[in-house]
């Protein structure tokens, strides 16, 4: 049973999970001793996002949460930026079901430690991504502009993102997102993709929560592919510094001219 695992085995003060209630399934936080209805792992709430909302308030308490592989990676990205303290966030490894893996087109579904569920096989490459990359660029542009035209600027993609840590998002500013009102156009989505390029863990919550049904996960996967190709970078590894912040020291320099 989850509470026992969290409180007795892991020694947590709080437990974050999702369970049934009011004819729905939603997030819940309980402390030791408190009751909890039936846990439901089949509804993919982004618990790390929910955690980051309440994290500033939990003080020195230890919080255990149901942790899918993507949550684990998200936590790693937050930890290496000093935004959460790994000692205060305890992981209850949750291996996603085959259906979930399929729905997320997840290539990396198994957490380092599995407490709940059976490890599943990774899904294959993102079909839409391959289809798009195979297109001539004009087609691709048509596709994305048509998708972005549906954007209603609800910020669900940033608000529900486990690795979007800014309270005040630059996409709310006119400075870079020139388009007034809605839809916010190309810059909105490109800037967001760039910002995520060195931290997105491909949990797919942006796509799941997008009211316009824009295939945002595919866009993220494209960026991830790029980062891999360019720098062999894969997010979610606590030790890996973002290549966008490392220097080229030790890497070969081009031939130079100095006399000015």
């Amino acid at each position, binding site marked *: 049973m989850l509470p026992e695992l969290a409180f007795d085995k892991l020694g947590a003060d709080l437990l974050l999970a999702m369970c049934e209630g009011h004819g729905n399934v939603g997030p819940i936080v309980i402390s030791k001793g408190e009751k909890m209805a039936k846990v439901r792992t089949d509804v993919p709430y982004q618990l790390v996002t929910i955690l980051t909302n309440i994290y500033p308030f939990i003080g020195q308490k230890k919080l255990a949460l149901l942790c899918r592989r993507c949550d684990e990676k998200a936590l790693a990205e937050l930890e290496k930026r000093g935004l959460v303290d790994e000692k205060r966030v305890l992981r209850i490894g949750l291996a996603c079901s085959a259906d979930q893996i399929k729905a997320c087109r997840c290539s990396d579904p198994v957490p380092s430690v599995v407490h709940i569920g059976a490890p599943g096989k990774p899904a294959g490459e993102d079909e839409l991504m391959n289809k798009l990359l195979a297109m001539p660029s004009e087609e*691709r*542009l048509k596709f994305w502009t048509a998708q972005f035209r549906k954007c209603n600027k609800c910020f669900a993609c940033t608000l529900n993102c486990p690795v979007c840590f800014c309270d005040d998002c630059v996409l709310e500013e006119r400075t*870079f997102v020139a388009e007034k009102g809605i839809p916010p156009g190309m810059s909105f989505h*490109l800037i967001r993709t*760039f910002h995520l390029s060195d931290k997105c863990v491909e949990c797919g919550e942006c796509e799941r929560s997008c009211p316009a049904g824009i295939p945002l996960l595919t866009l993220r996967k494209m960026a991830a592919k790029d980062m891999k190709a360019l720098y062999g970078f894969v997010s979610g590894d606590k030790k890996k510094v973002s290549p966008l912040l490392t220097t*080229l*020291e030790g890497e070969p*320099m*081009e031939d130079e001219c100095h006399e*000015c």
Partner: protein
Amino acid sequence: MTEFEPTILAFCCNWCSYAGADLAGVSRLQMPPNVHIVRVMCSASVKPEYAIKAISQGIDGVLVLGCHIGDCHYMTGNHRTAKRFPVVQKLLEDVGIDKTRLRLDWVSAAEGEKFQKVVTEFVEDVKRLGPNPLKEVRF
């Protein structure tokens, strides 16, 4: 129908590429008048957001020019530039915008000719691509 004249935005770092552009001027090296320079202290301060913003708004091409690797006035600034912009180029490709619209290059304060070459080439490249398709897109 007159020939397409691209509008190009350039970011030049104060110490090398901007000085290189000055030298090109002093040396009266002729080049097409499509490029508009924004002076920054270091190419490392050029936010990719600027390039994305400009291209999203229909600017036909964006040039980012810094000191040569190893020559950065701020030691490792341009290293970061060199890391960042290839990513932006890839992302542009991913959404179907030709990455040649964004060019990163190194021009030292002594390289008036190189500045001329880069500008001339880039204007040619962008002319070959034609107008930024996003100019036509209405969201």
